[in-house]
C-alpha cells in the first residue's frame, strides 16, 4: 500500500484588486504517491506550487479540489481532532531553522512541550529517554543540547535539531520544504545523509522539496518535476535526472552549474518576464519558452505519456 497518495490536487488563488482579479492555479491537478521508506523529491521552478502542495498535505491550506489519502484513508477533510492525530504521523521540517525556534526560548523546552502535549511520556525521565534517542538519530549529544538557546547552535546543528524534534512522535513521513537551501555544501550533505539513514534504519519516508538537483539525485528514489502548477515529469530519480525527457526538465538539468570551472555555460537562457503570463497560457504552459514547440502545444494541454517508466506531460512523446 502507498503511504501517501495525492490525487488530482488543485489550488486556486485569486490575486489583485476587485477590478482586475487574476486567477492563479498554483497547483493544477497534481497526482503522485509516496511509498513506505521512500525519499520522494519535488523540484521545479521557483513559484511552481511546491510549498502550496506541502502545506495542503500538512493541512495548513485547504485544497480547491482533489484528495489526499494516507495509508489508504482520505485525510484532506479531517476534523480538528483527527488532524492532530494525523500530524503525529506526518511531520514538517522547514527551510530556516532559526525561524522554527524562538530566540528567547531554550531549544530543549520545545522538545518537552511536544512530548507532554502529545502524551508520549508522563515523567521527565521518560521524556529525556525519548529525546536522547531522537538526538542520537541525528548525531547530536544530549549534553551538547540541554539548556541552550537557538543562537548557541550553528545553522546545521539547529536544522538537525529541528529534524530530531519532528521525529519525536515517530512519524512515518517527513515533509521537508527546502531544508538545505540556507546551508553550505558540507552541511547539506550531512542533512541529506541523515534522511538516507532515517529511511534505511527506521523506514521513514521523506517528501524532499528542493532546488538542489544534485542532492536530489543523490538521495531520492523518485522525483517529480513541477512547472507552473503541473507535474511535467515523474519517475525514478535515476531516469528523470540523468536522461530527462520533458524540455523543461532538460533545461533545468542543463542549468545545474557544474562544480568544474572547465565546464562553464556558453549559451544564454531566456526567462519568463512577468509571473502570471505563463499561468494564463492555453495549451502547454512551457510553450512560450520551449525550443521544441509545435502547433498543437499552443492549443491543447498535453496529457501524460508513458516513456520508459517515466510519465511525461509533453506532446513530443505522443
Amino acid at each position: 500500500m502507498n503511504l501517501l497518495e495525492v490525487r488530482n490536487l488543485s489550488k486556486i488563488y485569486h490575486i489583485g484588486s476587485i477590478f482586475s482579479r487574476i486567477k492563479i492555479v498554483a497547483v493544477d491537478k497534481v497526482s503522485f504517491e509516496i511509498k513506505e521508506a521512500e525519499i520522494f523529491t519535488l523540484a521545479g521552478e521557483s513559484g511552481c506550487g511546491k510549498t502550496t502542495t506541502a502545506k495542503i498535505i500538512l493541512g495548513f491550506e485547504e485544497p480547491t479540489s482533489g484528495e489526499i489519502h494516507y495509508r489508504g484513508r482520505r485525510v484532506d477533510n479531517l476534523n480538528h481532532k483527527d488532524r492532530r492525530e494525523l500530524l503525529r504521523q506526518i511531520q514538517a521540517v522547514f527551510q530556516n531553522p532559526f525561524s522554527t525556534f524562538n530566540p528567547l526560548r531554550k531549544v530543549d523546552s520545545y522538545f518537552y512541550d511536544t512530548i507532554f502535549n502529545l502524551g508520549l511520556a508522563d515523567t521527565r525521565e521518560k521524556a529525556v529517554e525519548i529525546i536522547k534517542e531522537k538526538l542520537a538519530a541525528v548525531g547530536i549529544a544530549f549534553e551538547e543540547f540541554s539548556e541552550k538557546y537557538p543562537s548557541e547552535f550553528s545553522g546545521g546543528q539547529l536544522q538537525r535539531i529541528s529534524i530530531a524534534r519532528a521525529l519525536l512522535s515517530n512519524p512515518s513521513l517527513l515533509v521537508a520544504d527546502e531544508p538545505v537551501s540556507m546551508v553550505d555544501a558540507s552541511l547539506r550533505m550531512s542533512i541529506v545523509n541523515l534522511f538516507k539513514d532515517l529511511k534505511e534504519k527506521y523506514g521513514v519516508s521523506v517528501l524532499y522539496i528542493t532546488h538542489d538537483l544534485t542532492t536530489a539525485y543523490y538521495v531520492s528514489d523518485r522525483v517529480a518535476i513541477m512547472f507552473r502548477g503541473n507535474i511535467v515529469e515523474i519517475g525514478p530519480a535515476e531516469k528523470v535526472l540523468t536522461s530527462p525527457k520533458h524540455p523543461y526538465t532538460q533545461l533545468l538539468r542543463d542549468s545545474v552549474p557544474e562544480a568544474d570551472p572547465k565546464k562553464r555555460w556558453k549559451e544564454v537562457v531566456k526567462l519568463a518576464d512577468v509571473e502570471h503570463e505563463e499561468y494564463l497560457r492555453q495549451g502547454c504552459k512551457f510553450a512560450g519558452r520551449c525550443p521544441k514547440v509545435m502547433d498543437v502545444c499552443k492549443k491543447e494541454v498535453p496529457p501524460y505519456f508513458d516513456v520508459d517508466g517515466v510519465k511525461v506531460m509533453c506532446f513530443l512523446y505522443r
Partner: protein
Amino acid sequence: MEVVKTESLKSYYILDIYGKKRVIKAVDEVDLTFEENQIYGIAGESGCGKSTLLKALFAAIEPPQRIVGGKVLYYVDGKSYDVYSLSEEERRKFRWNFISYVPQGSMSVLNPVLKIKDSFKDFIESHVKGKTKKELYEIAKQHIEKLGLPLKILNAYPHQLSGGMRQRVTIALATVLSPKVIIADEPTTALDVVTQRGVIQLLKEIQQASKNTIILVTHDMGVHANISDKIAIMYAGKIIEEAKTEEIFDNPMHPYTKYLIHSLPKFGDKERRESAPGSPPSLADLPPGCAFHPRCPYAFDRCKREVPVLKDYGRAHRVACWLVEEGRG
C-alpha cells in the same frame, strides 16, 4: 589594479547580554585585495562571517557590529581612502556610486507599494542632484534597456514580477549609478537553477560590459566554478585559502576546502559522500590554534597551539594551514 583592499580587518559583534559581554569574532584579521575587472567569489560554512565581511566592505555597519581593528581601503581615481577614518558624510559619497551592495535576502529591497520606475526614480534622485522627473525616468529606462530587461517591468509592482525578475531588478537598481564594485550576497539562494542561471548571466554581462569588480558570496560551488575568477574560502571568521578558481577546484590544499570540494554530489554517482565531521566552532568561543583543528583529521600538536597564518605557496595560492606549511600534506 586593486579597487578595494582590507588590511588585518577585524569586525566583531559586541553584545551585552544581561550585563555579560559577549564578543563574536565574525571577521578576524582578514587581508584581501580585490582587483579591477574581476569576479571574486567567497564561500564558506554557514555562519562563518561572510555577510559580516561584506557589510564591513560596504562601510555601512550597524551596532552590534563594530570595526575593532584594521582597515578597509577604497581606490578611487588613483587615490586611496582609508574608509573608516573618514566621516560618515564622506563615506556616504562612495556608497552606490563607487561601491554597491545587494544584500542577502534582498527580495525585499524594492518598495512593495511603488512601481518599479518610482523605486528607480527615488533611488537615483537621492544620489544625483538637479535632474527633472522626466530625466530620472529616462536614466532608469536606458539602464533597464542596456541590461536587456523588458521595459514593461518599469510599470509593474514588485509582487507582479517573478522571483527571478525581482532579483534582476534589484541588481539593476544596485548598478544604475555605474559603481566600480558590486557586492552580491547569496543573490540566487531561493531560486530554481534556470532562474539562477539568468541572474548569474546578468551579473556576468554587467561585469564584462563595464570591467568592474563583483564580489560574490554563495554556497553554491557550481556557481563559483561557473563565474568566479578567484575564490576565497572562509572558516570561523578567517580566510583560510585563496586562489584562482581552477586552482581551488583542481588543487584544494586546506583540509576544510578539500571536504568542501569532495563532498559535492554529482549526477551519475550515488556513492555515499561524507561531509566534514563535527560542527563549526562558536565564534564567541574559538578553540586555540587553528579553529578547524577539532574537526581536522590531520591535526597535530602545533595546530592546537598556534594560529596558522595565510601564506602564499606559489601561483598566488594562499593557504592558512600548518600541514601545508610543514610540507606534510
